[in-house]
């Protein structure tokens, strides 16, 4: 499998739209096109192998299931994961002759996507830094009362940042990376220590993604219980995600009712207290 200039340019365009802060906007760009699952579909369509694209996207999506960017700090760049990592993983899987649905295939995709995604944070900082220049121009315009320049600054000028930090890096990485990935096959034999480690890392990395999510949910140890109930439903009982979600609804409803009872009780109790105070 190879990537042509036109295909690489299309991937570059999607990288501009999908990044955080992307030109597709937050909801459509970052949270739709930037998600590896959607990126897998788009890359699959562009490269003409939708199935492999989606399977790579699925593998990487697990790692990045909770890509929360609190206060604008990023630990991985979605444009790099979805539009550089996935195409290169697809090429690698194809040239290694792996089945993309197999453990080896997803392991390779995960390792590659994570590596590219982590290195890609430099693209995020590049874009955000160049945007400072457009904002500076915007402040001057506002001071002069030329308010409509705000639209230019917010919607048009960032394209320049993205051509430099999204389009060109994606274009070059996809075009040149593809041949580098092919050369990797001869350099590193599959049964060697390096490749075995790479694939093992691929199966371990999703643990980090889940753990980041747990960090959001778990405040004290009791909060682990819903997680392990869900884990048990899927691992031991073999339920799928929709079934597990439906079962969770009953617990959520019960919990809500209890919380509401508790809060009315508190209100009533504090009301009593006030009365007594008045009596004294």
């Amino acid at each position, binding site marked *: 499998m190879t990537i042509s200039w036109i295909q690489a340019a299309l991937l570059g365009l999607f990288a501009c739209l999908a990044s955080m802060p992307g030109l597709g*906007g937050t*909801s459509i760009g970052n949270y739709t096109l930037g998600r590896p699952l959607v990126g897998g579909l788009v890359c699959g369509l562009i490269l003409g192998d939708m199935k492999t694209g989606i399977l790579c996207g699925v593998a990487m999506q697990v790692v990045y299931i909770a890509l929360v960017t609190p206060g604008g700090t990023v630990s991985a760049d979605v444009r790099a994961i979805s539009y550089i990592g996935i195409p290169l993983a697809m090429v690698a899987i194809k040239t290694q002759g792996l089945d993309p649905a197999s453990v080896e295939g997803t392991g390779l995709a995960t390792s590659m996507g994570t590596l590219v995604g982590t290195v890609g944070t430099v693209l995020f900082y590049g874009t955000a830094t160049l*945007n400072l220049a457009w904002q500076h121009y915007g402040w001057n315009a506002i001071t002069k009362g030329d308010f409509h320049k705000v639209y230019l*600054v917010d919607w048009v000028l960032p394209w320049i940042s993205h051509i430099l930090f999204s389009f060109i890096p994606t274009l070059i990485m996809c075009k040149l990376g593809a041949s580098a990935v092919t050369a990797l096959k001869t350099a590193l034999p599959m049964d060697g220590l390096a*490749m*075995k480690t790479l694939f093992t890392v691929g199966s371990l990395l999703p*643990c980090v993604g*889940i753990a980041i999510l747990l960090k959001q949910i778990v405040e004290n140890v009791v909060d682990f219980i819903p997680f392990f109930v869900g884990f048990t439903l899927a691992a031991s009982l073999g339920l799928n995600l929709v079934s597990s979600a439906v079962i969770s609804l009953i617990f959520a*409803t019960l919990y809500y009712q209890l919380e509401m009872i508790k809060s009315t009780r508190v209100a009533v109790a504090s009301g009593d207290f006030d009365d007594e105070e008045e009596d004294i």
Partner: protein
Amino acid sequence: MAEKKISKKALSRAFHHWYYGNLTCFTQEHMQTFGYLASMLPIIEDLYDNKEDQQRSMNTYTAFFNTEPQLGALVVGITAGLEEARANGAGDVDDETINGLRAGLMGPIAGIGDSLVVGTLIPVLLGIALGLSTGGSPVGAIFYIVVWNLLAYFGMKLAYMKGYELGGKAVDFLVGPQGLAIRKSVGIVGGMVVGAVAATWVSVKTSFVLKNAAGEAFLVLQDQIDAVYPGLLTAIFIVFCWWLMAKKNVSPIKVMLLLVVIAFVGVFLGFFNPGLQY
């Protein structure tokens, strides 16, 4: 003088400017400030005819702003309502009121938005979508694209309009006891679905086997582990990563590097073996 009211058209333009442009000109210095200005401009032009008033109101929104942009539509809506009140000569609405409110709300709204929208809703939708895309089917990806975008668009529109209509009361609902109860119960759904995602999509397995003299395996460690609790090794690794990040404040990148070391040592000792060949 007739009471000024923001026209429907201007309000709709303002919402769409925020929906699209909240982060397009992001910088570390001012983050969402320009998205905010682009959203307030149609309202300011609609409410004020003279340049001085426009300039004063634009200057109000040049203050730093950053929150979870999707739930943050609520804050933008609230300030649209406040700007309308100011245009009608409400004496108590000045720069300080508006910016005090914005600064006071960005933190809580970011916390609620990050945990509820980015930390729960999106992973749940993605978890379901992953299940639908098993085997390389596009159905899951399409499901996510459609459902997420409908929820995001109409959810943000609702938040914006409620913020405009209700003002500060909209916030009381979010941080009040009912809002808290809803958030906690949604957290239960999130926790269980994430557990199911972990069990379905993450698989850490050992290839460690003890053999007797005749070369027959008498201890297959993975089978023993599964007999205790299916997926135990996966669960241990997840809790280990959580412990490192939540309790030891190790950054995700360092945890990933540590996993590379663990994988290398594990492969070297024969604990891990992905069993590859050409």
